[in-house]
Protein backbone atom coordinates (compact mmCIF):
# COMPACT_ATOMS: atom_id res chain seq x y z
CA UNK A 1 0.00 0.00 0.00
CA UNK A 2 2.70 2.46 1.02
CA UNK A 3 4.81 1.31 -1.92
CA UNK A 4 1.92 2.12 -4.23
CA UNK A 5 1.55 5.55 -2.62
CA UNK A 6 5.26 6.18 -3.06
CA UNK A 7 4.99 5.31 -6.74
CA UNK A 8 2.06 7.68 -7.17
CA UNK A 9 3.88 10.54 -5.44
CA UNK A 10 7.04 9.77 -7.37
CA UNK A 11 5.12 9.80 -10.64
CA UNK A 12 3.44 13.11 -9.83
CA UNK A 13 6.82 14.68 -9.08
CA UNK A 14 8.39 13.20 -12.18
CA UNK A 15 5.47 13.96 -14.51
CA UNK A 16 6.54 17.46 -15.64
CA UNK A 17 9.95 16.12 -16.62
CA UNK A 18 8.38 13.20 -18.45
CA UNK A 19 6.00 15.56 -20.21
CA UNK A 20 8.88 17.75 -21.25
CA UNK A 21 10.80 14.81 -22.64
CA UNK A 22 7.72 13.61 -24.56
CA UNK A 23 7.07 17.09 -25.89
CA UNK A 24 10.62 17.32 -27.18
CA UNK A 25 9.82 14.47 -29.61
CA UNK A 26 6.62 16.07 -30.91
CA UNK A 27 6.11 18.52 -33.72
CA UNK A 28 5.35 22.07 -32.61
CA UNK A 29 1.74 21.58 -33.60
CA UNK A 30 1.28 18.42 -31.55
CA UNK A 31 3.12 19.95 -28.59
CA UNK A 32 0.24 22.22 -27.73
CA UNK A 33 -2.67 20.34 -29.24
CA UNK A 34 -5.72 19.92 -27.04
CA UNK A 35 -6.50 17.27 -25.94
CA UNK A 36 -2.80 16.44 -25.60
CA UNK A 37 -1.53 13.24 -27.13
CA UNK A 38 0.37 11.17 -24.63
CA UNK A 39 2.24 8.46 -26.49
CA UNK A 40 0.48 8.13 -29.82
CA UNK A 41 1.93 10.94 -31.82
CA UNK A 42 4.37 11.24 -34.64
CA UNK A 43 7.78 10.79 -32.95
CA UNK A 44 10.39 13.06 -34.47
CA UNK A 45 13.96 14.19 -33.82
CA UNK A 46 13.60 17.41 -35.80
CA UNK A 47 13.57 19.58 -32.65
CA UNK A 48 16.94 18.27 -31.61
CA UNK A 49 18.36 18.94 -35.06
CA UNK A 50 16.99 22.47 -35.01
CA UNK A 51 18.32 23.14 -31.53
CA UNK A 52 21.82 21.91 -32.30
CA UNK A 53 21.75 23.83 -35.58
CA UNK A 54 20.55 27.08 -34.07
CA UNK A 55 22.69 27.15 -30.94
CA UNK A 56 25.79 25.14 -30.20
CA UNK A 57 24.69 22.63 -27.53
CA UNK A 58 28.12 21.04 -27.17
CA UNK A 59 29.77 24.41 -26.53
CA UNK A 60 27.35 25.20 -23.70
CA UNK A 61 27.48 21.72 -22.26
CA UNK A 62 31.28 21.85 -22.09
CA UNK A 63 31.04 25.23 -20.36
CA UNK A 64 28.58 23.77 -17.86
CA UNK A 65 30.89 20.88 -17.12
CA UNK A 66 33.87 23.19 -16.66
CA UNK A 67 31.98 25.63 -14.47
CA UNK A 68 30.25 23.02 -12.31
CA UNK A 69 33.30 20.79 -12.03
CA UNK A 70 35.80 23.58 -11.55
CA UNK A 71 33.83 25.48 -8.94
CA UNK A 72 33.18 22.25 -7.05
CA UNK A 73 36.80 21.16 -7.04
CA UNK A 74 38.07 24.53 -5.86
CA UNK A 75 35.34 24.72 -3.21
CA UNK A 76 36.30 21.25 -1.95
CA UNK A 77 39.99 22.15 -1.79
CA UNK A 78 39.17 25.13 0.40
CA UNK A 79 36.38 23.51 2.39
CA UNK A 80 38.03 20.23 3.40
CA UNK A 81 40.85 21.80 5.43
CA UNK A 82 38.46 24.46 6.74
CA UNK A 83 35.86 21.95 7.90
CA UNK A 84 38.59 19.72 9.26
CA UNK A 85 40.06 22.35 11.49
CA UNK A 86 36.64 23.53 12.63
CA UNK A 87 35.57 19.99 13.49
CA UNK A 88 38.74 18.80 15.20
CA UNK A 89 40.47 21.90 16.49
CA UNK A 90 37.61 24.31 17.18
CA UNK A 91 38.34 27.70 18.66
CA UNK A 92 36.00 29.93 20.60
CA UNK A 93 34.82 31.59 17.39
CA UNK A 94 34.24 28.47 15.32
CA UNK A 95 30.51 28.49 15.89
CA UNK A 96 30.24 32.18 15.01
CA UNK A 97 32.32 31.65 11.88
CA UNK A 98 30.04 28.87 10.74
CA UNK A 99 26.92 30.94 11.35
CA UNK A 100 28.44 33.91 9.61
CA UNK A 101 29.24 31.77 6.60
CA UNK A 102 25.70 30.46 6.51
CA UNK A 103 24.25 33.95 6.92
CA UNK A 104 25.73 34.93 3.56
CA UNK A 105 23.34 32.42 2.00
CA UNK A 106 20.37 34.20 3.56
CA UNK A 107 20.97 37.34 1.56
CA UNK A 108 19.21 37.44 -1.81
CA UNK A 109 21.94 37.35 -4.49
CA UNK A 110 20.23 40.11 -6.41
CA UNK A 111 21.26 42.43 -3.56
CA UNK A 112 24.88 42.21 -4.63
CA UNK A 113 24.31 41.86 -8.36
CA UNK A 114 25.27 45.43 -9.20
CA UNK A 115 28.50 45.56 -7.15
CA UNK A 116 29.59 42.16 -8.44
CA UNK A 117 28.72 43.09 -11.99
CA UNK A 118 30.77 46.28 -11.72
CA UNK A 119 33.70 44.41 -10.14
CA UNK A 120 33.57 41.82 -12.89
CA UNK A 121 33.47 44.48 -15.56
CA UNK A 122 36.45 46.29 -14.02
CA UNK A 123 38.52 43.12 -13.80
CA UNK A 124 37.44 41.79 -17.17
CA UNK A 125 35.72 38.76 -15.71
CA UNK A 126 32.39 39.14 -17.50
CA UNK A 127 31.60 36.21 -19.77
CA UNK A 128 34.70 34.28 -18.71
CA UNK A 129 34.79 30.73 -17.36
CA UNK A 130 37.08 31.87 -14.56
CA UNK A 131 34.56 34.48 -13.48
CA UNK A 132 31.71 32.00 -13.34
CA UNK A 133 33.80 29.44 -11.50
CA UNK A 134 34.76 32.09 -8.96
CA UNK A 135 31.23 33.28 -8.24
CA UNK A 136 29.72 29.79 -8.04
CA UNK A 137 32.57 28.52 -5.91
CA UNK A 138 32.19 31.35 -3.41
CA UNK A 139 28.42 31.08 -3.50
CA UNK A 140 28.41 27.39 -2.66
CA UNK A 141 31.34 27.42 -0.26
CA UNK A 142 29.23 27.98 2.88
CA UNK A 143 27.06 24.97 2.08
CA UNK A 144 30.07 22.81 1.28
CA UNK A 145 31.85 23.76 4.50
CA UNK A 146 28.70 23.15 6.52
CA UNK A 147 28.07 19.75 5.00
CA UNK A 148 31.65 18.60 5.43
CA UNK A 149 31.75 20.00 8.95
CA UNK A 150 28.72 17.94 9.96
CA UNK A 151 30.22 14.79 8.43
CA UNK A 152 33.59 15.30 10.07
CA UNK A 153 31.88 15.98 13.38
CA UNK A 154 30.51 12.45 13.26
CA UNK A 155 34.00 10.96 13.26
CA UNK A 156 34.95 10.27 16.87
CA UNK A 157 37.96 12.27 18.00
CA UNK A 158 39.21 9.21 19.86
CA UNK A 159 39.93 7.43 16.60
CA UNK A 160 42.15 10.25 15.39
CA UNK A 161 43.91 10.28 18.73
CA UNK A 162 44.35 6.52 18.54
CA UNK A 163 46.06 6.99 15.18
CA UNK A 164 48.32 9.60 16.72
CA UNK A 165 49.19 7.24 19.57
CA UNK A 166 49.91 4.59 16.95
CA UNK A 167 52.62 6.86 15.62
CA UNK A 168 50.81 8.39 12.65
CA UNK A 169 51.88 11.89 11.58
CA UNK A 170 49.16 14.40 10.69
CA UNK A 171 49.53 13.61 7.00
CA UNK A 172 49.23 9.86 7.50
CA UNK A 173 46.37 10.32 9.94
CA UNK A 174 44.60 12.17 7.11
CA UNK A 175 45.34 9.60 4.45
CA UNK A 176 44.90 6.34 6.35
CA UNK A 177 42.22 7.15 8.91
CA UNK A 178 40.29 10.37 8.28
CA UNK A 179 39.76 10.27 4.54
CA UNK A 180 38.59 6.65 4.34
CA UNK A 181 36.15 7.32 7.17
CA UNK A 182 34.87 10.54 5.58
CA UNK A 183 34.55 9.24 2.02
CA UNK A 184 30.74 8.95 1.99
CA UNK A 185 30.44 12.51 3.28
CA UNK A 186 32.99 13.95 0.89
CA UNK A 187 31.42 12.14 -2.08
CA UNK A 188 27.88 13.28 -1.38
CA UNK A 189 29.01 16.86 -0.78
CA UNK A 190 30.83 16.76 -4.09
CA UNK A 191 27.81 15.43 -5.94
CA UNK A 192 25.40 17.87 -4.36
CA UNK A 193 27.68 20.76 -5.14
CA UNK A 194 28.03 19.72 -8.78
CA UNK A 195 24.23 19.61 -9.06
CA UNK A 196 23.84 23.01 -7.36
CA UNK A 197 26.45 24.57 -9.63
CA UNK A 198 24.97 22.94 -12.72
CA UNK A 199 21.51 24.29 -11.95
CA UNK A 200 22.62 27.73 -10.86
CA UNK A 201 20.93 30.23 -13.17
CA UNK A 202 21.00 33.64 -11.55
CA UNK A 203 24.71 34.37 -11.78
CA UNK A 204 25.35 32.44 -14.96
CA UNK A 205 22.58 34.32 -16.77
CA UNK A 206 23.72 37.69 -15.52
CA UNK A 207 27.47 37.33 -15.89
CA UNK A 208 27.81 35.45 -19.17
CA UNK A 209 26.44 35.86 -22.66
CA UNK A 210 28.17 33.59 -25.15
CA UNK A 211 31.82 32.59 -24.68
CA UNK A 212 31.45 31.25 -21.16
CA UNK A 213 27.70 30.69 -21.26
CA UNK A 214 26.66 27.36 -19.75
CA UNK A 215 23.45 25.46 -20.46
CA UNK A 216 21.28 27.80 -18.42
CA UNK A 217 21.94 30.54 -20.95
CA UNK A 218 21.32 28.03 -23.72
CA UNK A 219 17.83 27.29 -22.41
CA UNK A 220 17.05 30.90 -21.64
CA UNK A 221 17.75 31.80 -25.25
CA UNK A 222 14.71 29.70 -26.24
CA UNK A 223 12.22 31.63 -24.17
CA UNK A 224 10.81 34.92 -25.28
CA UNK A 225 12.34 36.44 -28.42
CA UNK A 226 10.64 34.23 -30.97
CA UNK A 227 7.50 33.45 -29.02
CA UNK A 228 7.12 30.13 -27.32
CA UNK A 229 8.16 27.08 -29.24
CA UNK A 230 7.22 24.37 -26.78
CA UNK A 231 8.72 21.45 -28.61
CA UNK A 232 12.07 23.14 -29.22
CA UNK A 233 12.20 24.54 -25.72
CA UNK A 234 11.51 21.04 -24.42
CA UNK A 235 14.27 19.60 -26.55
CA UNK A 236 16.72 22.23 -25.31
CA UNK A 237 15.71 21.63 -21.69
CA UNK A 238 15.98 17.88 -22.05
CA UNK A 239 19.46 18.29 -23.42
CA UNK A 240 20.36 20.62 -20.56
CA UNK A 241 19.25 18.30 -17.79
CA UNK A 242 20.36 15.06 -19.42
CA UNK A 243 23.95 15.01 -18.12
CA UNK A 244 22.98 15.82 -14.56
CA UNK A 245 20.10 13.36 -14.68
CA UNK A 246 22.50 10.62 -15.67
CA UNK A 247 24.94 11.62 -12.94
CA UNK A 248 22.13 11.72 -10.39
CA UNK A 249 20.80 8.35 -11.50
CA UNK A 250 24.16 6.63 -10.99
CA UNK A 251 24.93 8.35 -7.73
CA UNK A 252 21.49 8.26 -6.09
CA UNK A 253 22.50 5.66 -3.52
CA UNK A 254 25.53 7.67 -2.51
CA UNK A 255 23.47 10.89 -2.41
CA UNK A 256 20.74 9.46 -0.22
CA UNK A 257 23.30 7.89 2.07
CA UNK A 258 25.17 11.17 2.35
CA UNK A 259 22.11 13.28 2.98
CA UNK A 260 20.80 10.99 5.72
CA UNK A 261 24.25 10.52 7.26
CA UNK A 262 24.02 10.53 11.02
CA UNK A 263 20.25 10.85 10.98
CA UNK A 264 19.68 7.11 10.81
CA UNK A 265 22.20 6.03 13.41
Amino acid at each position, binding site marked *: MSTAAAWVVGFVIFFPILWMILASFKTELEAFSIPPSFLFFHWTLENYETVQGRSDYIHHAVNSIIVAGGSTLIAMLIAIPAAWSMAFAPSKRTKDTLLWMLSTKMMPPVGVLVPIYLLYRTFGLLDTLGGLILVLCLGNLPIVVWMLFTYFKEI*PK*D*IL*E*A*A*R*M*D*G*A*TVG*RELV*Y*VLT*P*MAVPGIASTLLLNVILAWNEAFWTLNLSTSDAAPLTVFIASYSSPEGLFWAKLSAASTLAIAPILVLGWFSQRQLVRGLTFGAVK
Partner: protein
Amino acid sequence: MGRITLEGVRKSFGAHAVIHGADLEIEDGSFVVFVGPSGCGKTTLLRLIAGLEDVSDGRILIDGANVVDVPAAKRGLSMVFQSYALYPHMSVRGNIGFGLKMAGLPRAEISRKVEAAAATLNLTPYLERKPRELSGGQRQRVAIGRAIVREPKAFLFDEPLSNLDAALRVQMRLEVTKLQRQLATTAVYVTHDQVEAMTMADKIVVLNAGRIEQYGSPLELYERPANLFVAGFIGSPRMNFIGKATAQRHGAETIGIRPEHLKASRDGEGWEGQVSVAEHLGSDTFLHVDVPEVGSLTARSIGELGLTTGDRVRLLPDPGRIHRFDSDGKTMSNRPPSS
Protein backbone atom coordinates in the same frame (compact mmCIF):
# COMPACT_ATOMS: atom_id res chain seq x y z
CA MET B 1 62.45 0.84 29.70
CA GLY B 2 59.59 3.01 30.74
CA ARG B 3 60.23 5.25 33.65
CA ILE B 4 57.87 8.23 33.73
CA THR B 5 58.51 11.28 35.89
CA LEU B 6 56.23 14.26 36.32
CA GLU B 7 57.73 17.46 37.69
CA GLY B 8 55.40 20.29 38.65
CA VAL B 9 52.98 19.49 35.83
CA ARG B 10 50.18 22.00 35.49
CA LYS B 11 47.32 22.19 33.05
CA SER B 12 44.74 24.89 32.52
CA PHE B 13 41.99 25.12 29.95
CA GLY B 14 41.73 28.87 29.50
CA ALA B 15 41.44 30.35 32.99
CA HIS B 16 40.27 27.05 34.44
CA ALA B 17 43.10 25.14 36.14
CA VAL B 18 42.60 21.39 35.96
CA ILE B 19 45.92 20.07 37.27
CA HIS B 20 47.60 22.09 40.01
CA GLY B 21 51.21 20.96 39.93
CA ALA B 22 51.63 17.19 39.88
CA ASP B 23 54.87 15.50 40.91
CA LEU B 24 55.08 11.78 40.38
CA GLU B 25 57.64 9.06 39.84
CA ILE B 26 56.40 5.99 37.96
CA GLU B 27 58.96 3.19 38.04
CA ASP B 28 59.76 1.04 35.07
CA GLY B 29 57.54 -2.01 34.82
CA SER B 30 55.11 -0.92 37.53
CA PHE B 31 51.35 -0.81 37.28
CA VAL B 32 50.13 2.58 38.46
CA VAL B 33 46.45 3.42 38.75
CA PHE B 34 45.07 6.96 38.77
CA VAL B 35 41.86 6.97 40.73
CA GLY B 36 39.52 9.70 41.85
CA PRO B 37 35.99 11.01 41.50
CA SER B 38 34.86 12.22 38.09
CA GLY B 39 36.28 15.60 37.17
CA CYS B 40 39.34 15.14 39.40
CA GLY B 41 41.73 15.45 36.45
CA LYS B 42 42.87 11.83 36.19
CA THR B 43 42.08 11.50 32.50
CA THR B 44 43.66 14.89 31.80
CA LEU B 45 46.84 13.79 33.58
CA LEU B 46 46.94 10.63 31.47
CA ARG B 47 46.41 12.63 28.27
CA LEU B 48 49.24 14.95 29.28
CA ILE B 49 51.55 11.94 29.60
CA ALA B 50 50.26 10.65 26.25
CA GLY B 51 50.89 13.97 24.56
CA LEU B 52 47.26 14.40 23.50
CA GLU B 53 47.15 17.58 25.60
CA ASP B 54 49.94 20.11 26.01
CA VAL B 55 51.15 20.90 29.51
CA SER B 56 50.73 24.48 30.68
CA ASP B 57 53.81 24.22 32.89
CA GLY B 58 56.22 21.64 34.25
CA ARG B 59 58.13 18.72 32.80
CA ILE B 60 57.28 15.17 31.82
CA LEU B 61 60.26 12.85 31.55
CA ILE B 62 60.24 9.45 29.92
CA ASP B 63 63.42 7.56 30.75
CA GLY B 64 64.99 10.83 31.76
CA ALA B 65 64.21 12.77 28.57
CA ASN B 66 61.83 15.71 28.72
CA VAL B 67 59.00 14.98 26.26
CA VAL B 68 56.71 18.00 26.70
CA ASP B 69 57.56 19.20 23.19
CA VAL B 70 57.48 15.73 21.65
CA PRO B 71 54.25 14.97 19.76
CA ALA B 72 52.12 12.02 20.87
CA ALA B 73 53.14 10.04 17.82
CA LYS B 74 56.81 10.12 18.81
CA ARG B 75 56.61 9.38 22.54
CA GLY B 76 56.67 5.61 22.11
CA LEU B 77 53.63 5.07 24.32
CA SER B 78 50.45 3.25 23.44
CA MET B 79 46.97 3.89 24.69
CA VAL B 80 43.76 1.97 25.17
CA PHE B 81 40.73 4.22 24.98
CA GLN B 82 37.46 3.97 26.87
CA SER B 83 35.59 3.87 23.57
CA TYR B 84 38.18 1.41 22.14
CA ALA B 85 38.59 3.83 19.19
CA LEU B 86 39.14 1.05 16.66
CA TYR B 87 39.50 2.02 13.01
CA PRO B 88 36.07 1.02 11.66
CA HIS B 89 37.24 0.62 8.06
CA MET B 90 40.07 -1.77 8.89
CA SER B 91 39.98 -5.45 9.79
CA VAL B 92 41.21 -6.67 13.17
CA ARG B 93 44.52 -7.45 11.45
CA GLY B 94 44.70 -3.91 10.06
CA ASN B 95 43.81 -2.40 13.42
CA ILE B 96 46.43 -4.29 15.38
CA GLY B 97 49.07 -3.80 12.70
CA PHE B 98 48.45 -0.10 12.06
CA GLY B 99 51.10 1.13 14.49
CA LEU B 100 53.68 -1.22 13.01
CA LYS B 101 52.77 -0.06 9.51
CA MET B 102 53.27 3.54 10.63
CA ALA B 103 56.65 2.53 12.05
CA GLY B 104 57.59 1.24 8.60
CA LEU B 105 58.15 -2.40 9.49
CA PRO B 106 58.34 -4.95 6.68
CA ARG B 107 55.07 -6.65 5.82
CA ALA B 108 56.18 -10.13 6.90
CA GLU B 109 57.28 -8.93 10.30
CA ILE B 110 54.02 -7.03 10.83
CA SER B 111 52.12 -10.16 9.97
CA ARG B 112 54.15 -12.27 12.39
CA LYS B 113 53.78 -9.81 15.27
CA VAL B 114 50.07 -9.25 14.68
CA GLU B 115 49.46 -12.99 14.70
CA ALA B 116 51.47 -13.42 17.88
CA ALA B 117 49.49 -10.66 19.61
CA ALA B 118 46.21 -12.09 18.33
CA ALA B 119 47.14 -15.51 19.69
CA THR B 120 47.89 -14.05 23.13
CA LEU B 121 44.47 -12.40 23.19
CA ASN B 122 42.50 -15.30 21.63
CA LEU B 123 41.69 -13.17 18.59
CA THR B 124 43.11 -15.46 15.90
CA PRO B 125 39.72 -16.54 14.48
CA TYR B 126 38.63 -12.92 14.12
CA LEU B 127 41.66 -11.44 12.34
CA GLU B 128 39.81 -10.77 9.08
CA ARG B 129 36.68 -9.31 10.69
CA LYS B 130 35.76 -5.65 10.93
CA PRO B 131 35.28 -4.11 14.39
CA ARG B 132 31.51 -3.84 13.91
CA GLU B 133 31.32 -7.63 13.63
CA LEU B 134 32.83 -8.12 17.09
CA SER B 135 31.33 -8.16 20.58
CA GLY B 136 32.27 -5.56 23.18
CA GLY B 137 34.78 -7.85 24.87
CA GLN B 138 36.42 -8.74 21.57
CA ARG B 139 36.71 -5.08 20.60
CA GLN B 140 38.35 -4.46 23.92
CA ARG B 141 40.87 -7.20 23.16
CA VAL B 142 41.62 -5.69 19.77
CA ALA B 143 42.27 -2.34 21.43
CA ILE B 144 44.64 -4.05 23.86
CA GLY B 145 46.27 -5.97 21.00
CA ARG B 146 46.89 -2.72 19.18
CA ALA B 147 48.60 -1.40 22.30
CA ILE B 148 50.82 -4.40 23.06
CA VAL B 149 51.96 -5.21 19.53
CA ARG B 150 54.12 -2.10 19.34
CA GLU B 151 56.14 -3.03 22.43
CA PRO B 152 55.80 0.51 23.80
CA LYS B 153 57.67 2.06 26.70
CA ALA B 154 54.40 2.21 28.60
CA PHE B 155 50.72 1.42 28.21
CA LEU B 156 48.19 4.09 29.00
CA PHE B 157 44.69 2.88 29.81
CA ASP B 158 41.81 5.35 29.95
CA GLU B 159 38.97 3.62 31.82
CA PRO B 160 39.20 0.70 29.40
CA LEU B 161 36.74 -1.59 31.14
CA SER B 162 33.93 0.80 31.92
CA ASN B 163 31.90 -0.13 28.82
CA LEU B 164 31.87 -3.84 29.65
CA ASP B 165 29.27 -5.67 31.73
CA ALA B 166 30.16 -6.57 35.30
CA ALA B 167 31.17 -10.21 34.74
CA LEU B 168 33.33 -9.42 31.72
CA ARG B 169 34.90 -6.52 33.57
CA VAL B 170 36.13 -8.81 36.35
CA GLN B 171 37.51 -11.26 33.80
CA MET B 172 39.27 -8.56 31.74
CA ARG B 173 40.64 -7.00 34.92
CA LEU B 174 42.44 -10.24 35.63
CA GLU B 175 43.63 -10.63 32.05
CA VAL B 176 45.00 -7.11 31.84
CA THR B 177 46.83 -7.56 35.14
CA LYS B 178 48.31 -10.91 34.03
CA LEU B 179 49.31 -9.52 30.66
CA GLN B 180 51.04 -6.55 32.24
CA ARG B 181 52.99 -8.79 34.65
CA GLN B 182 53.96 -11.06 31.77
CA LEU B 183 55.16 -8.21 29.55
CA ALA B 184 56.68 -6.28 32.48
CA THR B 185 55.87 -3.03 30.71
CA THR B 186 55.00 0.11 32.66
CA ALA B 187 51.25 0.70 32.77
CA VAL B 188 49.32 3.79 33.76
CA TYR B 189 45.66 3.03 34.26
CA VAL B 190 42.84 5.50 34.86
CA THR B 191 39.68 4.41 36.58
CA HIS B 192 37.01 5.75 38.89
CA ASP B 193 36.38 2.27 40.23
CA GLN B 194 38.33 1.80 43.43
CA VAL B 195 37.97 -1.98 43.30
CA GLU B 196 39.83 -1.94 39.96
CA ALA B 197 42.41 0.35 41.52
CA MET B 198 42.93 -1.82 44.59
CA THR B 199 43.10 -5.12 42.73
CA MET B 200 45.25 -4.12 39.76
CA ALA B 201 47.73 -1.57 41.03
CA ASP B 202 51.24 -1.82 42.33
CA LYS B 203 50.76 1.77 43.30
CA ILE B 204 47.74 4.02 43.36
CA VAL B 205 47.60 7.76 42.76
CA VAL B 206 44.53 9.26 44.41
CA LEU B 207 43.51 12.47 42.71
CA ASN B 208 41.04 15.05 43.88
CA ALA B 209 40.25 18.39 42.24
CA GLY B 210 43.45 18.38 40.21
CA ARG B 211 45.76 17.54 43.11
CA ILE B 212 47.52 14.32 44.02
CA GLU B 213 46.21 13.45 47.47
CA GLN B 214 48.35 10.38 48.02
CA TYR B 215 50.63 8.02 46.11
CA GLY B 216 51.27 4.58 47.54
CA SER B 217 50.57 0.88 47.42
CA PRO B 218 46.94 -0.22 47.78
CA LEU B 219 47.48 -1.46 51.34
CA GLU B 220 49.32 1.70 52.38
CA LEU B 221 46.37 3.72 51.18
CA TYR B 222 43.98 1.46 53.01
CA GLU B 223 45.91 1.29 56.25
CA ARG B 224 47.51 4.71 56.35
CA PRO B 225 45.44 7.17 54.34
CA ALA B 226 47.09 10.57 54.27
CA ASN B 227 43.93 12.54 54.79
CA LEU B 228 40.17 12.51 55.09
CA PHE B 229 39.67 12.40 51.32
CA VAL B 230 41.77 9.31 50.74
CA ALA B 231 40.34 7.67 53.84
CA GLY B 232 36.84 8.20 52.54
CA PHE B 233 37.62 7.30 48.93
CA ILE B 234 39.49 4.04 49.45
CA GLY B 235 37.54 1.20 51.00
CA SER B 236 34.00 -0.01 50.51
CA PRO B 237 31.70 0.61 52.20
CA ARG B 238 33.05 4.05 53.04
CA MET B 239 34.88 4.78 56.27
CA ASN B 240 32.72 6.13 59.11
CA PHE B 241 33.70 9.61 60.23
CA ILE B 242 32.87 10.81 63.71
CA GLY B 243 33.47 14.32 64.94
CA LYS B 244 32.65 16.41 68.01
CA ALA B 245 33.13 15.13 71.54
CA THR B 246 33.88 11.52 70.57
CA ALA B 247 36.75 12.66 68.35
CA GLN B 248 38.05 15.05 70.96
CA ARG B 249 38.31 12.20 73.43
CA HIS B 250 40.84 10.77 70.97
CA GLY B 251 42.61 14.10 70.72
CA ALA B 252 41.49 14.71 67.13
CA GLU B 253 39.08 16.84 65.12
CA THR B 254 37.64 13.82 63.35
CA ILE B 255 38.12 10.12 63.78
CA GLY B 256 37.52 7.47 61.13
CA ILE B 257 36.63 3.83 61.58
CA ARG B 258 36.24 1.44 58.67
CA PRO B 259 32.99 -0.57 58.65
CA GLU B 260 35.00 -3.80 58.88
CA HIS B 261 36.65 -2.57 62.09
CA LEU B 262 33.37 -2.12 63.92
CA LYS B 263 32.35 -5.27 65.69
CA ALA B 264 28.59 -5.65 65.81
CA SER B 265 26.92 -7.73 68.46
CA ARG B 266 23.48 -8.06 70.00
CA ASP B 267 24.68 -7.53 73.51
CA GLY B 268 28.25 -6.66 74.19
CA GLU B 269 30.33 -3.55 74.55
CA GLY B 270 30.36 -0.37 72.50
CA TRP B 271 27.94 2.19 71.15
CA GLU B 272 24.32 1.25 71.27
CA GLY B 273 22.16 1.93 68.27
CA GLN B 274 19.27 0.85 66.13
CA VAL B 275 19.60 -0.84 62.73
CA SER B 276 18.08 1.39 60.04
CA VAL B 277 18.95 -0.81 57.07
CA ALA B 278 20.57 -4.25 56.90
CA GLU B 279 22.08 -5.20 53.52
CA HIS B 280 22.57 -8.95 53.27
CA LEU B 281 25.17 -10.01 50.72
CA GLY B 282 25.40 -13.58 51.94
CA SER B 283 29.09 -13.51 52.67
CA ASP B 284 28.77 -10.21 54.53
CA THR B 285 26.14 -8.07 56.08
CA PHE B 286 26.30 -4.28 55.94
CA LEU B 287 24.48 -2.75 58.87
CA HIS B 288 23.51 0.90 58.75
CA VAL B 289 23.02 1.84 62.36
CA ASP B 290 21.72 5.02 63.95
CA VAL B 291 23.75 5.68 67.09
CA PRO B 292 22.31 8.59 69.11
CA GLU B 293 25.73 9.49 70.48
CA VAL B 294 27.67 9.77 67.17
CA GLY B 295 25.26 9.68 64.23
CA SER B 296 24.83 7.11 61.50
CA LEU B 297 27.48 4.35 61.23
CA THR B 298 28.03 1.49 58.82
CA ALA B 299 29.33 -1.80 60.10
CA ARG B 300 30.42 -4.77 58.08
CA SER B 301 30.06 -8.23 59.59
CA ILE B 302 31.15 -11.52 58.19
CA GLY B 303 28.25 -13.86 57.52
CA GLU B 304 24.72 -13.45 58.78
CA LEU B 305 23.87 -11.92 62.10
CA GLY B 306 20.16 -12.27 61.74
CA LEU B 307 19.62 -8.57 62.44
CA THR B 308 16.97 -6.58 60.64
CA THR B 309 15.59 -3.06 60.59
CA GLY B 310 14.68 -1.79 64.03
CA ASP B 311 16.84 -4.23 66.01
CA ARG B 312 19.08 -2.94 68.77
CA VAL B 313 22.76 -3.50 68.21
CA ARG B 314 26.09 -2.74 69.89
CA LEU B 315 29.08 -1.52 67.84
CA LEU B 316 32.60 -1.82 69.21
CA PRO B 317 35.46 -0.18 67.28
CA ASP B 318 38.83 -1.92 67.06
CA PRO B 319 40.94 0.50 69.11
CA GLY B 320 44.10 -0.13 67.07
CA ARG B 321 42.42 0.82 63.81
CA ILE B 322 40.97 4.18 64.58
CA HIS B 323 42.21 6.86 62.16
CA ARG B 324 42.65 10.36 63.57
CA PHE B 325 42.48 13.56 61.51
CA ASP B 326 43.33 17.14 62.45
CA SER B 327 41.31 20.24 61.65
CA ASP B 328 42.85 20.41 58.13
CA GLY B 329 41.74 16.84 57.45
CA LYS B 330 45.32 15.55 57.60
CA THR B 331 46.06 12.26 59.27
CA MET B 332 47.65 12.65 62.73
CA SER B 333 50.72 10.52 63.05
CA ASN B 334 50.70 9.24 66.59
CA ARG B 335 48.33 6.74 67.97
CA PRO B 336 45.98 8.17 70.60
CA PRO B 337 47.19 7.96 74.19
CA SER B 338 44.04 6.15 75.22
CA SER B 339 40.85 5.09 73.51
